[in-house]
């Protein structure tokens, strides 16, 4: 009876996961989708705690430990999730993802222990033939994938918050391949002839997997971490599915596979939005290192503009468009930006923001950033809309954006970003670009826009430049 109800709980869980994910992919329903999935998860968890019975019909025990763990994890989780800064979200997701991976790996380890004890006391007859084979395979796979996901996520987290630097050395990819190969060999070796004397080799699997996870993420540029996290996310999904297979548990199986598949597609979509391939991101030969940066500065003549001239140009314009980019985010200048906007609006200047989908370092970065500074949504134009509006714009103020306004994406088929849709700021009458130097951005390539007659450079940190602009505009 209880088991039957549990089955239904699990079915509800699986269905809510599918519905939730579906709703999450649509802006209008996303938040409700998250809630629905969370509800389904709660039902599945509570069902397991109270209704689960093992093969021999015994209920679970150790309720103290279980609730203890849930309370601790819950409190820490809520606090961490509530306290984190908006722009540090990807780090947080990465950390949580690592926890899931570690959890899957731990389950595999405990189950392996359990199995070996059983062998020691009861001999081979416990599990035979096919069953043993798939049982072992899922244990190994869970340990492998879970550990890679855990280690990789921790490194990704460290890179994003600046604790780890990119590390590239010669032969790195070959080393990775060797470690990967070792793990696979180990798994194959341990699959069939399992005896008391080779039990302990098993522990090499999680160990090597941890090493592999670290090696896998280390060479990838810090700016590519959102993509890597999404990939590791789908790995953890597969690890969870292994658990589902192990316990014959449909909700784990379906939930895990769902995330595995959706995560993989999402990773690919993310790469596409930046006009890159997944391979390109993983090999890590673009971005991060800014290796092509050296070529910068040789593009021709550019002209500078003073802060007061810029303030005059904007103060007397009819329509100003602000293009925020990664530089605005690092300078944490969103509040100053909003202040300038309000000031200009008081002077009857129409101010809008042009939001490129991959401006910044994570999808939706600019929306989140500006929402944090209370910029009203009506002012945020999506790319297509903005591109129509530039034609009637007097002044464009580019704040720490670079690649997303690089005309090479349209004109230069040899450019690595060729084909990426961009914000066509040249259509406006005047373009003012704020950055600290002539150095290139994320893609490490030069920007011809800076050398065009319409363009003026306004060097300096985004925040301090904005503050100067504010005081100048006030004095107009």
């Amino acid at each position, binding site marked *: 009876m209880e088991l039957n109800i549990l089955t239904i709980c699990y079915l509800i869980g699986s269905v809510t996961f599918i519905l939730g994910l579906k709703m999450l992919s649509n802006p209008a329903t996303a938040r409700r989708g998250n809630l629905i999935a969370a509800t389904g998860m709660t039902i599945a968890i509570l069902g397991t705690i109270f209704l689960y019975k093992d093969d021999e019909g015994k209920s*679970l025990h150790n309720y103290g430990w279980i609730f203890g763990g849930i309370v601790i994890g819950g409190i820490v989780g809520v606090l961490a999730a509530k306290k984190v800064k908006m722009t540090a*979200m990807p780090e947080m997701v990465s950390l949580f993802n690592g926890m899931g991976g570690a959890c899957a790996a731990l389950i595999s380890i405990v189950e392996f222990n359990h199995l070996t004890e059983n062998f020691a006391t009861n001999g081979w007859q416990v599990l035979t033939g096919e069953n043993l084979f798939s049982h072992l395979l899922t244990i190994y796979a869970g340990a492998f994938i879970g550990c890679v996901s855990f280690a990789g996520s921790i490194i990704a987290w460290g890179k994003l918050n600046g604790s780890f630097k990119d590390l590239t050395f010669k032969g790195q990819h070959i080393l990775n391949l060797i470690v990967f190969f070792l793990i696979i060999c180990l798994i194959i070796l341990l699959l069939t002839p399992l005896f008391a004397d080779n039990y302990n080799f098993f522990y090499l699997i999680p160990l090597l997997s941890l090493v592999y996870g670290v090696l896998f993420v280390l060479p990838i540029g810090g700016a590519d971490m959102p993509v890597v996290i999404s990939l590791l996310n789908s790995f953890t999904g597969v690890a969870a599915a292994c658990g589902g297979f192990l316990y014959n548990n449909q909700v784990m199986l379906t939930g895990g596979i769902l995330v595995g598949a959706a995560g993989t597609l999402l990773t690919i979509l993310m790469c596409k939005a930046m006009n890159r391939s997944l391979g390109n991101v993983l090999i890590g030969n673009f971005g991060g290192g800014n290796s092509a940066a050296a070529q910068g500065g040789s593009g021709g003549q550019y002209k500078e503009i003073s802060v007061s001239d810029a303030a005059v140009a904007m103060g007397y314009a009819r329509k100003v468009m602000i293009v925020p980019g990664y530089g605005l985010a690092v300078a944490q200048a969103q509040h100053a930006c909003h202040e300038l906007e309000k000031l200009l609006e008081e002077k009857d200047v129409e101010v809008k923001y042009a939001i490129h989908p991959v401006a910044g370092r994570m999808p939706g970065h600019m929306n989140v950033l500006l929402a944090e500074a209370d910029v009203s949504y009506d002012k945020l134009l999506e790319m297509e809309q903005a591109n129509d509006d530039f034609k009637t714009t007097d002044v464009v103020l580019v704040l720490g954006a670079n690649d997303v306004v690089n005309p090479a994406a349209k004109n230069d088929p040899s450019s690595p970003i060729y084909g990426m849709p961009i914000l066509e700021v040249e259509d406006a009458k005047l373009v003012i670009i704020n950055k600290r130097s002539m150095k290139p951005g994320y893609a490490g390539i030069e920007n011809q826009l800076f050398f065009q007659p319409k363009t003026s450079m306004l060097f300096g940190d985004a925040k301090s430049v904005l503050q100067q602009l504010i005081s100048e505009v006030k004095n107009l």
Partner: protein
Amino acid sequence: MNEVLSWISVHEQYIYIVVLMIFLGIEVIGRVPSVLHTPLMSGANAIHGVVIIGAIIVMGKAESDNYIALILGFLAVILGTLNVVGGFVVTDRMLEMFKSKNKAQKANSRKLSN
């Protein structure tokens, strides 16, 4: 070869569920706009926290003298809960940022359809 085939046959329904789930995973997020990539990633992250169910089972089945299982299981429960709870809360916070956006969008589309 033969073994693999019979393995497939024995687990036929599992394989169906897995295959269908893969299709569904791909279909379901097919047309997500790129601003939603981060919240979607985060939501998916919370969903794979379902692995906590495995941790609860491990924990609940551990004999009370099996300290390794108890400790590892306890750790697994904590980590799994972190993943689930943190994941959903973080996603919700992110999506809160987009709230005003939706309202405005709805208003817009209402305007258009009239």
